[in-house]
């Protein structure tokens, strides 16, 4: 295909198109593709950001999986943040409940966002959350505390060699981000 009768102009137009396309490629292909791949393959330890709808399935009482909980504050986050229990033994297919404790020691109202990560990363796609405080931003008044619920099911199809799953939450301070968005509206 010729874009111009002048061969030099033709070459330049084609190459300029390629470079513009590559710039667009980063935004419209690489970023969504990365997120889709991480979601579909459960790599990077990312769990789904949506609540899981429990399916009717038998509880596999013959297997016991240890689920460990870790809570970390991101740099500069002043909250107290920890799991109420640090580990529990669960059966695949069964719904389990636990809570995380959070306290805001400052005098300001703050908003936090917890970001989950599952290790080993292969287990991420078998770790379903039916309810999680990480699905939403968590506002908390100054000098107050709260218990944040988590309900999860470990899938019956979890590979046999996985006996321990570690769920880690990092808590980010998103107060400034939220107020910016409100101001922008």
């Amino acid at each position, binding site marked *: 295909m010729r874009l111009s009768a002048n061969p*030099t102009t033709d*070459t330049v137009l084609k*190459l300029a198109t390629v470079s513009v396309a590559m710039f667009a*490629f*980063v935004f419209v292909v690489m970023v969504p593709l990365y997120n889709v791949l991480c979601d579909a393959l459960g790599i990077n330890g990312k769990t789904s950001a949506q609540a899981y709808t429990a399916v009717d399935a038998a509880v596999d009482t013959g297997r016991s999986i240890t689920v460990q909980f870790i809570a970390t504050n991101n740099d500069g986050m002043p909250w107290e943040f920890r799991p109420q229990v640090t580990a529990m033994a669960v059966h695949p297919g069964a719904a389990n409940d636990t809570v995380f404790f959070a306290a805001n020691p400052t005098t300001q109202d703050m908003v936090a966002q917890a970001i989950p990560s599952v290790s080993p990363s292969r287990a991420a796609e078998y770790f379903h959350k039916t309810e999680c405080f990480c699905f939403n931003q968590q506002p908390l008044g100054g000098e107050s505390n709260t218990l944040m619920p988590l309900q999860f099911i470990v899938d019956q199809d979890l590979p046999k060699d996985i006996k321990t799953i570690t769920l880690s939450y990092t808590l*980010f301070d998103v107060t400034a*981000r939220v107020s910016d968005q409100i101001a922008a509206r």
Partner: protein
Amino acid sequence: MGDHHHGPATGIGRWLFTTNHKDIGTMYLWFSFAMFILGGTFAMIIRAELFQPGMQLVEPGFFNQMTTLHGLVMVFGAIMPSFVGLANWLIPMMIGAPDMALPRMNNWSFWILPPGFLMLASTLFMEGGAPAFGWTFYAPLSTTYAAPSVTFFIFAIHILGVSSIMGSINIIATVMNMRAPGMTYMKMPLFVWTWLITAFLLVAVMPVLAGAVTMMLMDIHFGTSFFSAAGGGDPVLFQHIFWFFGHPEVYIIILPAFGVVSQIIPAFSRKPLFGYASMVYATASIAFLSFIVWAHHMYTVGMPVAGELFFMYATMLIAVPTGVKVFNWITTMWRGALSFETPMLFCIGFLILFTIGGFTGLMLSIAPADFQYHDTYFVVAHFHYVMVAGAVFSMTAAVYYWLPKWSGRMYNETMGKVHFWISFVGFNITFFPQHFVGLAGMPRRIPDYALQFADFNMMSSIGAFIYGASQILFLYNVLATIIAGEKVTDEKVWDGAEGLEWTIPTPAPYHTFEVPPKLDAAHA
């Protein structure tokens, strides 16, 4: 075009408004040398601080700014523009074209570079200091935790990206449309081939880099969360995008160097290049593979095993075409009538040291071993063997080789050889010990180190001062040649040199090949 057949304009206007490929090439070469000295100064500050353990001269924050700016200035300011300058000078002369295809755009590609680097260098004097997050500018170091000057850094990257893309489009348009009749693709000199492929790499990946810094800009100023986990983004995504640009980038730097060596080794072996066609295919294979190996820079981010294996095997595969090239260069020299003028010495230095750098690259490609080498001085040693002894040595060889043709004057051969030997020895004293401290676990980009690394670091620093000083000798030699070198008038400055650029008068006239040359058997 009344002044078409006249020589250059006079005064500063000649340089500001020139559309002549030789003038623009000269400006690129001088600009890149200035950047080489600037980046070298930053390196000297780094090595002076590391001369002894403990904090000696500079604050840790300033040290980080030095490592960052050293990398950025050397990669984007010194090496890349120097090869663009070489391409400007040589490609029209090698393919029998009167000039580049787009002379006015050529002027722009050069003249937006100095403001871009002025902007980058000015960050040193800003509140909070210059960028201090390493030349790879990983988010969130370069977003959430960066000094405010990062915005100027982002725009500087945009500017030099635009410059590179315009330069590459120009080179491709020239090579595809302006070859002399009879100059088919498979008759082009290898330097032209390597630059053609490099230019395609640049057009493909410089926009990716521009995309990465644009995302940083949006994260910093417009509330997006491409790389911020708190807003649903992912810092690892930055590394994928950066290295999708970054790995082709290292071949953008080294492929023109391969081209230079492929011109010079045959000239001083007095034999045609061995395996011309395989050189072309090897170059193209390396360029293709460069797009599918990027994650070998990030084995430690927690990739699935299948991913680690894929990137490991793909990376190792690059050793095959590279091995073909090294084999061809050695075979070109085999039973040749060798002579060892300065350009040839630098090419042989390149061949030996680049191969060492290639082998350490193979070591780094082994995913399980890389967990030990990652972010240590072993990596620093590896990429300086391929960047300095690879790209810079071949660039130096190119200057010595073509300077007589450009200026009509011969450089001082003895001084050139002294420059080579001081460079070669200084380089190895600097970087060879870094392999050892790296394997023993010394991390890169750290202003202080454990006492056990003291001796090797002192050696490294002494070597760096020797290597740095030898560049002043180089500058003196080049200046002395241009001002008062012995005049040469032979069209073929070197008796073994082949190619169209050796059929025009010496020094090369301001305008060449206004009438396309006829290719005789010797040049076809």
